[in-house]
């Protein structure tokens, strides 16, 4: 899912950076306004977990492997804006130390995984708007994780497909990415829902995202 350098056209690189940067600035400002310092340990631990799960590739149909993205997990635990920042930081470390994802393509990777993924928080918010039922919360997290994986795949497919450096075009890249991540998204959804609901039972106090959903904290 991490796009390496050399496959995106300069226009696509420019567009993705231009979309990503304002989101990150906005996320920074929102986080600064809403959160205190005490978010740091939870932010660090959840980001480390995401880094580790992204190392574990598992096979799905057709000789292809995938890894869990984990960003909906961050968004529900931390809230959307710190999730955006911490996912971006994880991607930065992956690109810098492990060459997982390109440097020029970083804008695209941050857009696909950090920005789009974190916004899945608002899917959960929309689906749980009128209720504080735990069942509804769990099913909303499930749906949001799956949709986030699909949208991430869709964005990646579009960026590659519209790049001339990439053979095949969108009619190849979009169906290919989306079909793989429609399956990955189910695994993603099961894992995210299981982790989020366990944390909700064991340690709800650290879940700023949950507080934002329940209205005891406001963005």
């Amino acid at each position, binding site marked *: 899912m991490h796009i*390496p350098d050399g496959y995106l056209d300069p226009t696509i690189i420019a567009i993705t950076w231009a979309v990503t940067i304002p989101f990150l600035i906005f996320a920074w400002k929102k986080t600064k306004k809403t959160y205190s*310092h005490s978010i740091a340990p939870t932010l660090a*631990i959840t*980001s*480390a977990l995401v880094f580790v799960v992204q190392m574990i590739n598992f096979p799905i149909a057709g000789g292809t492997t995938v890894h869990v993205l984990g960003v909906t997990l961050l968004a529900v635990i931390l809230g959307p804006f710190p999730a955006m920042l911490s996912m971006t930081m994880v991607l930065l470390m992956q690109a810098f130390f492990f060459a997982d994802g390109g440097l020029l393509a970083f804008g695209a990777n941050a857009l696909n995984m950090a920005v789009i993924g974190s916004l899945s928080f608002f899917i959960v918010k929309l689906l749980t708007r009128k209720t504080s039922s735990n069942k509804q919360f769990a099913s909303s997290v499930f749906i949001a994780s799956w949709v986030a994986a699909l949208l991430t795949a869709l964005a990646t497919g579009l960026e590659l497909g519209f790049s001339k450096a990439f053979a095949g075009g969108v009619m190849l890249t979009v169906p290919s990415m989306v079909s793989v991540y429609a399956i990955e998204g189910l695994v993603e959804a099961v894992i995210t829902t299981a982790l989020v609901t366990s944390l909700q039972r064991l340690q709800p106090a650290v879940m700023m995202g949950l507080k934002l959903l329940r209205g005891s904290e406001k963005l």
Partner: protein
Amino acid sequence: MKKYILVAALIILALAVLLPFASSDPDGLENLISTSGTQQHESFWNGLMADYSVAIGNPYFSTLLAGIFGTMVVLLATFVLGTVVAPKEKSENVKKI
């Protein structure tokens, strides 16, 4: 803080246990690159530990060490991020905005 250190240790333990089950086959994107007939590129930046491996013979420990290093780096970087971005104290009325 003790709890957080415990969870960090559990995360690294999970990595050590799950790593042998991780597949090294190409992922969806790499597969698409090779099947679409796109010309493949050598990257201009190979990182410090390309493909999550350090220069030791055993592939399991090579990836595990890279993973532990990465986990530590991510913990540190995101902890610093968290403390830098969010101010130390919040007055109640700021929080309610």
